[in-house]
């Protein structure tokens, strides 16, 4: 059957388009279901050739059945779709695209998220096949799959090698379809098919791999977040309550290795302060299979631990600043802060495996710069009078840096006293703590530190969590209410969020922070006794804030050099081609071409000529310009031109050769002008315009 190949190609185009969702789900999750849908729809279209009117329905049903068997097999009854299957399928049509947009990527390959991709491929197949087989329009048949490609890029753009592979695959399929359905059945030899694909492949590979491309400007994902109910108890208010019941177990930790146990377990990050209360971030997404390591200046190591939550009311799950993956639970994650939130707190004992990225910091953090790009500047409310002055006094006017952050920490540690009880974090209470009583709870220390740091321009945030207990019970650590506390974190360039301890309640428990605590302590130890300005050059690690990038010398110089080379080589080459063309013209056109060639050569050498100058006048002009040999050549040329144009006889080979010999004579004469004039004439592009 002649239709077989075009049908296969249209289906293949739709499959390639479906695989363009790779940034969203990963190729391993997409390949089986997209492949099965493509094979089934293509086969159904070919087999239903005898019932053309029913073909779209048959193909669509076969495709849907294939999707069900691959993705929704658990809901079927021995492979037969049930009511559950239909319900899930309907939700897949309406919701799965949105659930996917609300997830972090790569998303989990679950049916309720993944369903819309094979369904899109199926729709593209059905429409593409009908356009191909009914309307016989192979180009239009690619429109549905191309629409899927566009949609996939609006979801998540392919970059780098993946983009090159996707582009080559789609273009290859389209080219094959074009080749098998050419408008004219002109026979093309096999070598005729080779050059164009090779050139296209080369261009795509070069452009895709060598030309730097920034990330996409827009994704449908950026405006889609999971709506979270605002009715959540602030964990900050819970800390004091928890300290009154110190023995209740909150969660247990079983680390994958003893060395990789962190000292702190952040539960929630409080970033926004309006002068009264602290609020968490609101950018929650479903946690996908894996989060990428943070883009910091230091390498990050992946760590794992098993966590079991014992607290019945808990909706916030113990986490780490840079979570990587969660297994055994399906939480939401705050995409900027790493807090984990379960959607419903029904289950009492949630056990889950947590993986996180731990930045490895070596040496000391002394002299590091702060990093405003990480956030931590969301409001200080309306500070009462005296607070700003206090902040300035605490750091003694030192510029915002990690040094000044440590100085502020030292100031709070030395000047204030920690007490138990309920403090409160609104400005009147903080003012009383800071300016009057000078004693407060750990929450007040942390909150006061954050607002003072923000007043000083240091990005900081408040974190509520637990410290790891010192002793193991059995093979796991049981974290109890007594371990709850709050601490501030400041954003440090190249390292990320660094926890500080203004209350002096540093976790004395076991565990390490990938060297972060040691590095901080080292910087703390190097603090000068009297505040002073930080060094002007804060070390090699202190990256500039990204605004003064080096001037792209190569990007500017290389194109200019290429253009200059093109001019220097292209203009003489064009002239040579022009002369060749003139010489090869038939009849007296070759003689006239010789005349034009001589005229152009003289013009390039600035010999004054007008449009109506005859060859003899040209000879006179050349003689006047001090070119006797050229003038002789021009006189010879004049006689051949007169003969060719006015004798009425067609000039034979001899006359034409004589004319061009005269041109050569003219050029030899022009050599007398010197090298500089000759080079200038050779690259002069003006005579090419005529």
């Amino acid at each position, binding site marked *: 059957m002649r239709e077989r190949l075009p049908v296969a190609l249209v289906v293949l185009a739709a499959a390639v388009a479906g695989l363009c969702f790779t940034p969203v789900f990963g190729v391993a999750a997409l390949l089986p279901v997209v492949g099965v849908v493509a094979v089934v729809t293509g086969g159904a279209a070919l087999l239903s050739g005898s019932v053309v009117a029913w073909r779209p329905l048959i193909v669509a049903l076969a495709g849907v059945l294939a999707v069900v068997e691959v993705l929704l097999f658990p809901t079927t009854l021995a492979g037969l779709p049930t009511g559950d299957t239909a319900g899930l399928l309907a939700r897949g049509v309406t919701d799965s695209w949105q659930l996917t947009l609300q997830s972090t990527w790569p998303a989990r390959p679950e049916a309720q998220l993944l369903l819309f991709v094979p369904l899109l491929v199926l729709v593209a197949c059905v429409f593409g096949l009908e356009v191909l087989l009914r309307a016989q329009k192979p180009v239009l048949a690619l429109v549905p799959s191309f629409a899927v490609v566009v949609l996939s890029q609006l979801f998540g753009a392919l970059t780098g090698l993946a983009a090159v592979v996707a582009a080559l695959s789609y*273009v290859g399929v389209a080219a094959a379809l074009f080749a098998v359905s*050419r408008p004219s059945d002109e026979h093309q030899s096999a070598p005729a098919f080779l050059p164009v694909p090779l050139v296209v492949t080369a261009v795509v590979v070069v452009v895709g791999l060598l030309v730097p491309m920034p990330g996409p400007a*827009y994704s449908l994902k950026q405006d889609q977040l999971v709506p979270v109910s605002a009715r959540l108890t602030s964990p900050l208010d819970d800390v004091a309550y928890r300290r009154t019941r110190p023995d209740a177990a909150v969660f247990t930790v079983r680390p994958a290795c003893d060395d990789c146990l962190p000292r702190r377990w952040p539960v929630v990050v409080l970033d926004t302060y309006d002068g009264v209360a602290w609020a968490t971030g609101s950018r929650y997404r479903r946690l996908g299979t894996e989060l990428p390591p943070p883009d910091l200046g230091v390498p990050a190591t992946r760590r794992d631990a098993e966590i079991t939550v014992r607290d019945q009311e808990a909706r916030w799950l113990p986490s780490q600043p840079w979570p990587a993956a969660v297994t055994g639970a399906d939480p939401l994650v705050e995409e900027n802060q790493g807090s984990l939130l379960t959607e419903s707190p029904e289950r009492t004992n949630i056990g889950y495996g947590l993986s996180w990225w731990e930045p490895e910091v070596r040496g000391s953090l002394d002299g590091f710069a702060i990093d405003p790009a990480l956030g931590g500047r969301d409001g200080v409310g309306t500070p009462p009078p005296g607070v700003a002055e206090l902040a300035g006094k605490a750091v003694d006017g030192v510029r915002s840096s990690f040094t000044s952050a440590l100085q502020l920490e030292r100031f709070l540690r030395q000047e204030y006293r920690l007490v138990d009880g309920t403090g409160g974090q609104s400005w009147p209470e903080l003012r009383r703590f800071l300016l009057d009583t000078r004693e407060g709870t750990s929450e007040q220390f942390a909150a006061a530190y954050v607002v003072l740091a923000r007043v000083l321009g240091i990005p900081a945030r408040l974190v509520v969590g637990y410290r790891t207990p010192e002793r193991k019970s059995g093979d796991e650590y049981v974290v109890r209410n007594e371990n709850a506390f709050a601490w501030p974190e400041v954003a440090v360039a190249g390292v990320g969020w660094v926890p500080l301890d203004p209350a002096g309640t540093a976790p004395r428990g076991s565990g390490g922070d990938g060297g972060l605590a040691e590095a901080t302590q080292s910087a703390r130890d190097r603090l000068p006794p009297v505040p002073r300005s930080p060094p002007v050059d804060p070390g090699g690690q202190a990256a500039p804030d990204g605004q003064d990038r080096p001037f792209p010398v190569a990007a500017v110089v290389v194109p200019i050099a290429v253009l200059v080379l093109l001019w220097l080589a292209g203009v003489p080459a064009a002239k040579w081609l022009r002369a060749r063309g003139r010489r090869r013209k038939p009849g007296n056109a070759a003689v006239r071409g010789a005349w034009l060639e001589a005229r152009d050569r003289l013009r390039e050498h600035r010999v004054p000529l007008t449009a109506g100058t005859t060859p003899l006048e040209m000879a006179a002009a050349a003689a006047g310009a001090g070119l006797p040999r050229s003038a002789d050549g021009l006189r010879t040329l004049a006689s051949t031109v007169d003969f060719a144009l006015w004798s009425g006889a067609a000039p034979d080979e001899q006359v034409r050769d004589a004319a061009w010999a005269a041109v050569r004579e003219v050029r030899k004469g022009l050599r007398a002008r010197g090298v500089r004039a000759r080079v200038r004439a050779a690259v002069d592009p003006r005579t090419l315009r005529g």
Partner: protein
Amino acid sequence: MRLTVRGSAVLVVSAVVGAAGLWGRFPLFLLLAAAGLVAVVAAVLVTLRRVDVEVTRDVYPDRVERGAQALGKLKVRNPSARWQRGFLAVDTAGGFHRTVQVHGLAPGASRPYDYQLPTPVRGRMPVGPLVLSRTDPFGLARTGVTVGGTVTLWVHPRSFPALARTGGFPRHHHEGRSNDRLRGSLDLRELREYVPGDQVRDIHWKATARTGRLMVKESADPDQPRLTVVLDTRAPVLAAPAFEEAVDVAASLLRSAALAGHHARLLTSCGTDVATAGGPLAARQLLDQLCLIGQSTEAGTLLSTVRHQGGCLAVVTSGAADVVELSGLRSRYSSIFLLALGENAGAVPGVRVLTAGDAAGLVGMWNEVRT
């Protein structure tokens, strides 16, 4: 050189996708746009060279029966000094296209190609001009050049072998026997002895002198054999396919009569009147005329052009036509045939009615009738 619809679509989509890719910084869009633009540019470069060949095209023969094949002869020569890649030559005949794949040609080489031209429709069919085109392997761009003029192919109606049936026409109003074979204007049959009442001008003096008795020439009046065919061209009477059959019947009768050397005359109800003296040229003249005849929508009578007499009259029409007036022509023609297509025509006094569904059947019946 110009882009095909497909090439233009690729160009436009690439430009749009490229603009979207630049605006939104989508690498895949930029790569697809680059691929599309490069493909179009490459296709343009591939088809940039003109088809530079000398082509002569003949159509043989210049007159064919409907349904028969005419032969187009293409001779392609490469006059340039370079190898010519293959191309397609598309010849237009009527509303039909014939495509010839011309293979690559070495410099100076030439190659002949034959192809058949379909002739399903009667009439004058313009053939040509010849379009030489070359496309790139993906159909994005093509270059084409139109060469050669237009020649006219006459598609005659089909002719079936028919009996050259004619009727005599008394030319001299001679009172006596008539001769149905034409040998002269006054045909000498015998010499006989004078009987009272014979005209004196008939006396054959030489024989009288030789025999000594009065001898007279007995002459016979030769009938000039002739066939008149009336073709009904009124559109309401015959549907278009039936009309073609009717034309075929008329062509069969007239051609055989003309080729037999008889006077043949074509009349149509819309006023055509072609009288010929027989012979191959006359046959060609009649067939050319039949080639051009079309149906007329004007209402009129069937026999409006019948103003002559003598010979055999064959009226080709449909069985539904009103043919009663034919019986009024009995005195003017020696024999009258009504060849009716399709329906069963009623009997008309003095007229032989032949009825068949198509031209072949009707001509067959014409051949079977004995007089």
